[in-house]
């Protein structure tokens, strides 16, 4: 091998410069065989992904995990505070199994609830309760946990109709989280189509598409969101409302992904590796499949992580303002709307919890978006 000296002297070099510039260069400079096995940097499954997976599963299984149905009303328990869970009974005796006492409104003040020490009810797992269905085909009456009537278990209290807030929060997550997800998918697909067309065809088409996108990006987006909603019917069924809200959010948000996709395609078309592949006789289909699509896909994945929390918030706000999903079906937005009444806000702090529910979800999505952004950046 006459050529080895060239290879060795070059390859054994530890390129400190490229490291200073933040590019990962010779990762295992001293053990090439290890690098040969490991290869591509594996995607780190962060806490954010675990958390999001868990919360989405929990929300799909809302019927099972929630002790009550979202519509179940216990009128005598309006605005009940979170139920106290006991291990030690009124007589001071310790029980291994957690239990609650039956509560009743105090006779002189309907806002005060009194525990009835004579009626303990143990917290049961796989307890019988309201009938529910998961994804429409699995029906059951067994809940993950619950207590038997007349006792009741309100983890984070009830609303004005005596509906269990915890259960409604889980069901409401179905609306809010999935509205965000579907709307983001909707606008990303729209963005992919329009941005892709603009990037591929260029010229007039590109001009028009990007001008329109700019209009959608420029207008302060709550205003645009509400305005677009304004031109659509107000009194509608929950299912229509869900679809409507999703399409409104998606329609308002397509501008940014479209711009991104166009940018990626324009820059990729000029990349030398695309030229080189054409030099090997690659067809357009091949270029799209092997080079352009994976590039766009990665950008769009990042964009999804950015858009989903934004769109969850959009749903929350529309429903909060009474322009989204309406009663009796819960969403985090319309649940929070009750807290706008001054007496509710002042007296029943748990009514603010629906506003806190998106916070961990947003944190997780933001962290995920950041990870993905770093990754995309380091790849260019």
């Amino acid at each position, binding site marked *: 091998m006459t050529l080895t000296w060239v290879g060795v002297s070059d390859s054994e070099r530890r390129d400190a410069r490229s490291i200073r510039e933040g590019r990962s260069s010779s990762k295992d400079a001293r053990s090439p065989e290890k690098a040969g096995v490991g290869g*591509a940097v594996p995607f780190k499954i962060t806490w954010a992904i675990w958390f999001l997976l868990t919360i989405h599963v929990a929300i799909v299984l809302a019927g099972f995990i929630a002790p009550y149905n979202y519509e179940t009303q216990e009128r005598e328990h309006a605005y009940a505070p979170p139920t106290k869970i006991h291990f030690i009974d009124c007589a001071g005796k310790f029980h291994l199994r957690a239990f609650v006492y039956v509560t009743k409104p105090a006779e002189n003040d309907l806002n005060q609830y009194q525990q009835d020490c004579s009626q303990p009810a143990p917290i049961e797992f796989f307890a019988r309760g309201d009938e529910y269905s998961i994804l429409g085909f699995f029906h059951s009456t067994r809940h993950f946990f619950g207590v038997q009537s007349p006792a009741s278990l309100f983890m984070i209290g009830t609303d004005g109709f005596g509906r269990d807030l915890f259960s409604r929060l889980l069901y409401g997550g179905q609306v809010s989280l999935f509205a965000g997800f579907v709307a983001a998918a909707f606008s990303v697909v729209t963005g992919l189509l329009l941005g892709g067309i603009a990037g591929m065809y260029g010229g007039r088409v590109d001009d028009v598409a990007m001008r329109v996108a700019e209009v959608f990006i420029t207008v302060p987006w709550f205003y645009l969101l509400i305005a677009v909603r304004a031109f659509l019917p107000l009194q509608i069924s929950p299912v229509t409302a869900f679809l409507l809200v999703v399409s409104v959010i998606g329609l308002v948000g397509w501008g940014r992904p479209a711009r991104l996709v166009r940018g990626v395609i324009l820059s990729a078309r000029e990349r*030398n590796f695309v030229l080189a592949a054409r030099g090997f006789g690659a067809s357009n289909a091949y270029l799209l499949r092997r080079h352009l699509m994976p590039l766009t896909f990665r950008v769009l994945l990042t964009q999804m992580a950015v858009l989903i929390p934004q769109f969850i918030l959009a749903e929350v706000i529309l429903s909060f303002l009474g322009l989204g999903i309406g009663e009796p079906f819960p969403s985090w937005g319309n649940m929070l709307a009750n807290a706008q009444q001054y007496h509710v806000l002042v007296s029943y702090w748990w009514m603010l919890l629906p506003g806190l529910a998106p916070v961990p979800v947003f944190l997780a999505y933001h962290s995920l978006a950041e990870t993905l952004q770093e990754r995309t950046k380091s790849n260019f």
Partner: protein
Amino acid sequence: MTSGNLGLLKLDPLLRVSGFSVEYDAASGAVVRALHNVDLEIGEGESVGVLGESGSGKSSLALALLRLLPGNARVASGTVEYRGRSLADVSPAQLREIRGAEVALISQEPALALNPVLPLRRQLADVLVAHRDLNREAVASRCDEMLRQVGFSDPERIMRAYPHELSGGQRQRVAIAQALICQPKLLIADEPLSALDVATQADILELLARLKRDLGLAMIFITHNSGVLASLTENILIMREGEVYARGDLAKLQNSSDEYVQSILFPEKSLFASSPQSSTNDNPVLVVHGLGKKFIQQRMLSRRKFVVQSLEGVDLELNAGSTVAVIGRSGSGKSTLARCIAGFETPDSGEILLHGQAQTEKLRPSKNGDLRHPVQMIFQDAATSLNPSFTARQIVAEPLEIAHWKSEAERTERALELMEEVGLDPGWASRLAGEFSGGQRQRLALARALAAEPKLLIMDEALSGLDMPLQAQMVRLLIDLQARHGLAYLYISHDLNFVSLFAQEVLVMDAGRIVERTIPTKLGQSAHPATRALLDASERLHAPGVEAAV
């Protein structure tokens, strides 16, 4: 033999570096050694030249001396003492007093060394004000004096200007003025010439030599180009992989038999082991006849169109196993020529024949198993010519995959073979493109081109992104491959380096036409103004090295 000869007579040398090691934490978590056990001593008024290829740690040395290393780097061992005081132990405030006032730095890339949004008056005066307690008039007159000293005849205009209003050479002069305005004892110049054009390089070099003499500066001059050192210092330190590989005076090192030392001092010389063979093949691979190409430009919101004549009546013939170099300024049409021959652009007139067949057939999607694509192109910027999400194996096997050549396993095997052929360890096949260094990426691009079994390789400034020693290695590899596969090369460059060493014919382009055809050895006698301009640019810089080699 070390630079400390004179320093031994004094108690403390100006700067003493002993057993100095620096490590980086790479993004992947690995620890990378940038400097290892470096010793260096400089007395007042002495100079040392630090030579080495990129990645040899010479720039890390410059930064580490002033504690300017980025956050992910740390000093692993050793000390840097300035006048007997360890720089690692001084407080940030004391360090600030040393920086700029005692030890000054001229960084790489003058274009980027000045703040783009501040007027130069402020950038110059601030350095002075930070270290000297002077009133306004004194500051102004010192700035004026300093700017005159670095060769400006109209300091007032310069002080009012912003960096973007100056040329690269002027900016580097201002950066030098900034460094010297507090009359430091030691100047660290980190590749101060690398981003300048050739004529300016010579000017700046003269200036530095004069200032050193006049001000009695001690200087550490870091470069990869040994040619520039002759006028500054005889005292040389050669670095390799973060270690001091050799030291001594220039003349002695030039006579050293060590291969690495030779390749650093005379990058061109190492090529002569395999000299180009002249080919007497009468069956031309490529015939270009009367090629013409126009571009029509239209400004935004304007109906006026501009026609740019990019190529006009270009004729060219290239035989198997031979090399033709096309040189010219940027914008002379040479890249358009390359892209037309490669089939990325369609010429407006003229014909391109590959083995007597019209080239237009070439870019059709390939049929099963047939991977012959007779023309391949190697691009200047290896970073964008490889898809960053592909592994080395995928990159090299891509032409095979596109052509549906044999089975997956055979394709992989072939890819590994090719990697070895271009001098890359096949064990790295699963690494991503981004994990390779610039020179290695250019090798990957070469391996990929070879996979298509080309007859003609077009190299569009393919060596320009690399530093001299790496360029020399690439040229050697190319000559080797040419001999083995009978490849024809079309070498396109604005730079005359290496051209004389492996091309049989040189075509000079200017404004879309071929203005001169000659052979490399007669290039020097050319009278054509376009050729002369290119020659002048090359000679002023590489003079010592090239002369020694030729």
